């Protein structure tokens, strides 16, 4: 009797445990949402943990009034080119390194990976001076180039692993049918890499959109700042309107959430990249 009883109990245990975990996971998000709907005086007088006395959309109006639309626009102006450029360049590099007998290809790949292990803080000052020399300091183009460059190594490495899994027979068949190297890349390799590209794309979008360090290093003009430093700018030296910052954070999360929901199908299959080998 006991085994069947245990078997009946198991899903219950599983669901209670997972339900609790999920609730714990969602609690901070719920707290941010509630905070964004409260007034500052209410928060200051009664604390974050108290029950709200009333709910209002005022903080959202304040956040948007402080120029958050412009900041989100700036973020997209930086993020979209970075994601596109990264994926195009990384997929080309990965294809070349995975399918062509380029001398030092292994060294190149390791070098790219090693570059990723360097902490970004180490590069801040040299890169700042470089962008100044090239005349792209305090411009979106400069940030786009730098963010593309710092991410490229990692994406190439992941795509390289994925492309090595594409059977040689397919690319060879295309070549026999007269496809050029670029044709094979465009018509065979790219479509087959789509899940990995989508997964990496949504990752790249999140990372670039949430970047703060490079933005505050390479940009100075308030009107060009993306949304992360703009939210930082809402903090006072001593006091911050928690409700307005919470509202601004909720708004800033919307684009990433949309991208993630749109690509989550690929994202989950993308997580399995290389796992079947």
């Amino acid at each position, binding site marked *: 009797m006991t085994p069947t009883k245990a078997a009946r109990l198991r899903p219950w245990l599983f669901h209670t445990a997972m339900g609790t975990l999920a609730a714990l996971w969602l609690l901070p998000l719920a707290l941010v949402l509630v905070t964004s709907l409260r007034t*500052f*005086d209410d928060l*200051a*007088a*009664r*604390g*974050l943990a108290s029950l709200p006395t009333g709910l209002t959309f005022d903080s959202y109006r304040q956040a948007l009034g*402080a120029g958050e639309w412009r900041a989100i626009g700036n973020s997209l102006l930086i993020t979209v080119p970075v994601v596109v450029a990264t994926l195009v360049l990384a997929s080309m590099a990965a294809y070349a390194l995975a399918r062509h*007998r*380029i*001398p*030092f*290809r*292994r*060294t190149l790949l390791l070098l790219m990976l090693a570059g990723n292990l360097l902490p970004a803080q180490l590069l801040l*000052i040299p890169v*700042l001076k*470089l962008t*100044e*020399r*090239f*005349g792209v*300091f305090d411009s979106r183009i400069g940030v786009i180039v730098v963010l593309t460059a710092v991410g490229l190594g990692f994406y190439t490495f992941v795509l390289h692993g994925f492309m090595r899994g594409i059977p040689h027979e397919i690319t060879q068949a295309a070549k026999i049918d007269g496809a050029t190297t670029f044709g094979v890349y465009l018509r065979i390799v790219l479509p087959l890499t789509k899940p990995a590209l989508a997964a990496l794309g949504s990752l790249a979008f999140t990372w670039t959109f949430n970047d703060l360090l490079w933005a*505050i*290093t390479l940009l*100075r*003009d*308030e009107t060009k700042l993306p949304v992360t*430093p703009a939210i*930082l*700018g*809402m*903090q*006072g*030296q*001593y*006091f*911050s*309107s*928690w409700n307005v910052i919470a509202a601004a954070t909720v708004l800033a999360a919307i684009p990433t959430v949309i991208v993630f929901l749109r690509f989550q199908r690929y994202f989950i299959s993308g997580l399995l990249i290389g796992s079947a080998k």
Partner: protein
Amino acid sequence: MSHLTVNRRGFLAGLGALGMTSALGACATSTTPAPAASGSGATSKALTLKSRETSDKSRKAMQALLDEFLKTNPQYKPSLNTMEAAAFQQQIRADLTLATPPDVLTWFAGEIASDFAGQGLLLDATSVFPTDGYSPQFAALSADASGKKIFIPTNYYWWGMFYRTSHFEKWGVSEPKTWDEFIALCKSLKGKGVSPLALPLADAAWLTASWFDYLNLRINGAAFHRALLAGQESYEDPRVAKVLDVWREALPYLDPAGKGLSFQEGSAKWQQGKDAIFLCGPFLADAMPAEVKADVNFFQFPIIDPAVPVAEEAPLDGFIASAHTANPDGALAFLKYAATPAAQELYLKISENTLIPANGQAKSPHPTPLLEKGRTMVAAAADVTQFFNRDSNDDQLNALTTALVRFIDKPGEAAGILKQWQSDSAKARGN
């Protein structure tokens, strides 16, 4: 292995890569003069003011300053650029060395400004520094080591033991004058079930510096304090040990939850009356509702040794201009305007901050008894200091917070802590 297959093709690829780098190098050198030329053309009329005042009203006040400046100087094109204070502080060294730096920046008087001046990063503002209006102390604080004026003070504030009048009445207690009265007050508050002293440390460990500064000023005086911060005296000196000995008497009255509270949470707790007294500046109440602001009061840090001349902390804020500015005339014109009583009154009128204008001829646009009490206290002081990190630098402040946070935890280990502090401080100084 790939490196064994290196042959003619590999060699050519290598050559190509080399060519590429040299081409990039050439590219870098050939583009260098372009931004520099447009930057240092000295004909620029643009005037960027970089500010770290992020609050809504302060932003408006800064913009109002620029608008007013434009009325009398229509030839310039001023613009405001605001950056969050922590990021501002992180960026300023890079900013001042840029080929096209911001022209005018908000900053504070003290060692860091003198350091910048020593590196030749600040514009000489001697020609626009008013001959009267500023107290000799403020004028001295605005000069670098060689006596050149490099800083234009605009306003200052003070530090004190802040409390809420209505709460003190409710508890039936009054302001202490001496350290013994202060300890007695803490004891009686604790007896009434109120936590006497607020000291939130989670994100504001620097607040410990206010206690150290004041205790040191009250026990050993301003001259020793300055010498200690400048590295001429040691933290292992018995006089510093005395400071910790006196502070140990107050430690039992600190809010035990303070270590886990952020500054904002700590000030909310003080506002609610759960903590009675907060050693702080008047900015403590800046974000609080009007009825709370009207209820805020403070008393002077208690006198410990009546023989020591009374010194107060009065941090002085103002503007600096970059030495590499493309528009030195505009920057100087703006600094000249910022030093006038009219400009300082305009700024405080709109920002509504509890600050005192630095120019003695300027009047507070929103005079309150609190502001008057602060002004009187600073004016009566025999000496004025800035604040620990303003009188030294942020590395020294880190050494202090490490030592004092440990001291609050383990008040019995003062000797070891002071030894470590001296070594940290010397290391940060680079010797």
